[in-house]
């Protein structure tokens, strides 16, 4: 064979090895963060005891309950949501060929907020009660979640239909997403205008994305869908590389670009819908984490996709940990903190330029 005289490219393998190290380093940081996140809070638990409890050693019953019932599900939800939003973001940026694309570009989060507003205001699922934390409670979370999810899916179906009709042109999809976002925002404002104080507070509260809302059953569902989506995108990493090289090049490399786009949009929209309807709107992670990783290890999808998954998990878990501590004993919803945490790092990375 005429190209058989090649050697193993050690320079290139060394270069890719650095990217692998970056991802492994991220996973290491994630584990440390997980322990720290569980250790800190209103009740401090020493990290060693956290690890002991996690591996099944009963240290004290009280710590056992705090860890297994409250802090571990919340920390794992942050990891799952960060990973899911980030992988959806990196995929949408390729699919729509647009650096501003994120899971919310298609109007999905606003559709979810509209769904929640419909549930709270029209179906009357919102209720303000004075609990010790002074929190707003949504008295029928399942109905609210299901309605939010239904509207997320409605937005997804509309976008996919538009993409089909206009033969999957990325620009059309982005613009349709922006239009849909505005439409649902207007819908939320319309409903809010007629809402009473309690309902208004409930709707606003719902839209603050919060990873503390999910218990083990919700977490399990979100984790299954997020892991499936991560596997799907990683399995398609070569196809995404091909798509990034241009539609014609991708087709010439044997990739069915239209099908890849549509399937990718469905998977990304599904992950986003599930996360948004359980947790509320968590912005920034899906948009910015992929770009942080691009700045550090480049656009090659073999490393970009896993890198973004890890980066999203790290950023959301770190934000949630800080959100629980920053105005203790009050606990802030993580959505407020993600941009506070991420924006300075992101701007620094933008100014610094690409890693050489």
């Amino acid at each position, binding site marked *: 064979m005429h190209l058989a005289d090649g050697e*193993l490219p050690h320079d290139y393998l060394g270069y890719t090895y650095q990217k692998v190290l970056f991802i492994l380093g991220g996973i290491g940081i994630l584990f440390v963060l997980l322990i720290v996140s569980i250790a800190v809070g209103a009740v401090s638990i020493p990290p060693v005891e956290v690890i002991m409890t996690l591996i099944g050693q009963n240290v004290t019953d009280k710590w056992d309950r705090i860890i297994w019932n409250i802090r571990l599900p919340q920390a794992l939800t942050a990891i799952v949501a960060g990973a899911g939003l980030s992988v959806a973001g990196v995929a949408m940026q390729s699919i729509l060929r647009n650096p501003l694309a994120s899971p919310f570009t298609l109007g999905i989060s606003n559709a979810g907020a509209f769904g929640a507003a419909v549930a709270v205001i029209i179906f009357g699922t919102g209720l303000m009660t004075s609990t010790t934390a002074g929190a707003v409670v949504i008295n029928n979370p399942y109905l609210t979640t299901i309605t939010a999810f239904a509207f997320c899916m409605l937005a997804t179906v509309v976008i996919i239909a538009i993409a089909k009709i206009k033969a999957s042109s990325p620009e059309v999809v982005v613009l349709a997403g922006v239009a849909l976002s505005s439409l649902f925002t207007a819908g939320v404002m319309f409903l809010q205008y007629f809402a009473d104080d309690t309902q208004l507070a409930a709707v606003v509260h719902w839209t603050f994305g919060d990873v503390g809302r999910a218990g083990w059953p919700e977490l399990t569902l979100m984790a299954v869908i997020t892991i499936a989506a991560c596997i799907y995108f990683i399995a398609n990493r070569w196809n995404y590389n091909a798509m990034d090289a241009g539609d*014609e090049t991708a087709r010439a490399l044997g990739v069915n670009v239209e099908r890849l786009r549509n399937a990718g949009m469905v998977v990304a929209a599904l992950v986003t819908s599930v996360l948004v309807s359980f947790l509320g709107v968590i912005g920034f992670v899906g948009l910015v984490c992929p770009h942080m990783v691009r700045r550090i290890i*480049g656009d090659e999808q073999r490393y970009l996709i896993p890198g973004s998954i890890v980066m999203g998990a790290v950023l959301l878990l770190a934000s949630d940990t800080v959100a629980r501590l920053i105005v203790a004993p009050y606990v802030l919803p993580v959505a407020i903190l993600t941009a506070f945490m991420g924006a300075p790092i992101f701007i620094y990375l933008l100014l610094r330029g690409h890693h050489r």
Partner: protein
Amino acid sequence: MILSVDELQFLYRNTKILDDIAFSISEGEIVAILGPNGVGKTTLLKCLNRILVPREGVVSVCGDPIASLGLMEVARRIGYVPQRVETGRLTGFDAVLLGRRPHIGWDITEKDLRIVDAAFKKFMIDHLRLHYLDEMSGGELQLIAIARAFVQEPKILLLDEPTSALDLKNQVEILDLIRNIVTDHRIAVVMTMHDLNTALRYADRFIFLKDQSIHTYGDRSIITENEIEAVYGVPVQIGELWGVPCVIPQCLCNGNGKSKEEENQHIVQKRESRAYVRYR
């Protein structure tokens, strides 16, 4: 016969772009598709590997109609280099490695890495291995794009205006390289071109497209002054320089921007008479 096209017809929104296209190509040949802008050169090229799907007609590669082959199988037989190459934060090696896509299952193997390594040596672009695409020049990007199509190990390579955006040195280097791989690897190359002189020097056969169809198809002997004027609507003269045929368009300027009445009198007359006919 490595590629044959029969009764190909392509419509874009019910407008006929190509009609009744038929030709065939043997291995080891470079075929240039020539013709004025907008005549469908790129469309024809894209119909050859199903980037565009023709309304009618059959394109066969190595005896098999491509409509019967899967996308991946087509990609193993036909490589394609578009006119414009997308860049990104990728190294040259990453970009060329992508050309192995039709051959890889879950992930690349050592064999793929070795083939890409060999391609870099063959193309003499070892210095671009770890360069980023978004920092490369047009000529370097074109070399990377051709190398990517080359590591697909295709039987046929389709190139869409491979040299139209390049300077003289890059044009010569890239076309020499293409000639070289056609000879060494017995593949066939089909490329669209604008520059008749470059086409004359590097191609073996020529397809002139005009009015949605093939005006003429054949070897060097079909390139005559009358043929070129018929296709492009510009009177030309063909001379020889160092034994190489050169096509020069006749125009009102002689090189310093000033018209030379005496020398060009006959052209002026010719143009005027044509203009008269057109406006009558």
